[in-house]
């Protein structure tokens, strides 16, 4: 059998485009919504009934114990979300969304450390002080070279894409 010795495709690693990153993130959040948020949705329904956000806010503000309960629930949910991102990016370098959009997380250091992947994913926790990252990360992303989030810079990781050249 003749084997064709074709030249290996040359691949360059470049910073991932913001739009692709956004789509990958949306996909990941949809998956998490299906797999993880569902049982909590029932719990929130049981706590607040079918009220609007304004109604929920009124209910929460009227009871300190309820507002603490809600915070604890959101923290728990956030930790589950963070686990998804941290574990998959640490082990595979990719979440489901990133895999489908052919993105991956690259480490600036020689050896990857678990804390890096926890820090870079802290923004998914929807309680104070982590929600500050919802403002800080996107701003840093827009104004930094390579579109890096602030927590990515902190954790010395980056999201990249392999392109054929």
């Amino acid at each position: 059998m003749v084997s064709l010795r074709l030249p290996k495709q040359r691949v360059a690693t470049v910073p991932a485009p913001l739009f692709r990153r956004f789509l990958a993130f949306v996909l990941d959040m949809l998956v998490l919504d299906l797999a993880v948020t569902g049982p909590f949705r029932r719990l929130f329904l049981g706590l607040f009934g079918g009220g609007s956000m304004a109604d929920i806010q009124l209910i929460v503000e009227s009871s300190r114990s309820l507002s603490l309960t809600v915070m604890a629930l959101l923290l728990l949910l956030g930790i589950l979300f963070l686990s998804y991102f941290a574990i998959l990016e640490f082990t595979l370098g990719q979440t489901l969304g990133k895999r489908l959009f052919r993105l991956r997380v690259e480490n600036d250091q020689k050896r990857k450390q678990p804390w890096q992947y926890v820090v870079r994913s802290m923004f998914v926790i929807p309680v104070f002080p982590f929600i500050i990252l919802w403002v800080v990360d996107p701003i840093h992303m827009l104004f930094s070279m390579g579109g890096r989030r602030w927590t990515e810079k902190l954790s010395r990781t980056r999201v990249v894409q392999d392109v054929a050249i």
Partner: protein
Amino acid sequence: MAQKKTPQRRPWVWIVGVLLVLGILSVMFAGVLGMLLGVEDSATIRTGKGNVALISIEGTIVSKSDGLFAKSYASSTDIVKLIEKADKDKSIKAIALWINSPGGSAVASDEIATAIKQSNKTSVAIIREMGTSGAYWVASSTDYIIAHRASFTGSIGVIASYIEFADLLTEYNLTYRRLVSGKHKDMGSPFKKMTEEEQELFQESLDDIHDMFIEVVAENRGLSEESVREVATGRFFTARKAKGYGLIDELGGKEEAKAYLKKELDMDVKFVEYKKRKSLLSFLGSTASESFYAMGQGIGDSMVGSGVPIIRT
């Protein structure tokens, strides 16, 4: 020398595995938290914005019903807590009791009635299909009673009837071995014949509670005891008839209640439902209860049709 190949991770196994584990963990956490939150003392949820607390009294009134299959009972323990919560809530200006109950325990009914009377807010009772006996006891403690014109109310009386099996035991050659200390200790036991003396004693207790009921209604409704006693034969009335006797104030429903409260409070009113927060366990229990009931109802319907006599128009 052959290089050792690094084991390739199987990405899809990892992704599915992580999602599965997180899914299981979220179900577990939500379940445990649901149970924990459900047994909290402050187990009230209010659904939506509003300034009138709407508290439902549905089913037989009992003191406490926290069993798994307790959906069809109105627990006075829970309802009193809801009333107290509404009373403390500054955004709530009035309390409306949405009643659809045949009554129940005298103690439980009185507990709810007392809680409503002790609250500092204007109160109104809205009787939907039925507000009889203990439910009427509760309704009478509010400032205003509105009942649907085709509903039933009244039934100011006390009942403690039971089935006596003494003769059945005799027929089957079974013996009730009476071992008591205190001659009236087993008074009311269904396994023995009730003596005349015991019946008199029982009747005395029932009459006492009946008198209490009459006094409460007379005081609450501003009627004389004599006029209440005349209608307190235990019979129920349609709302129209009850209005004639002064037992209720108006025929209608929620809209009439809103109009009354708007006039009393001199402001627009909006109902907000106050209800007991359900734990995951009681949610599962009531779902199971409903399913089993529906199954039984279906089987019963198919066997006997609509055999239960109900009043139809």
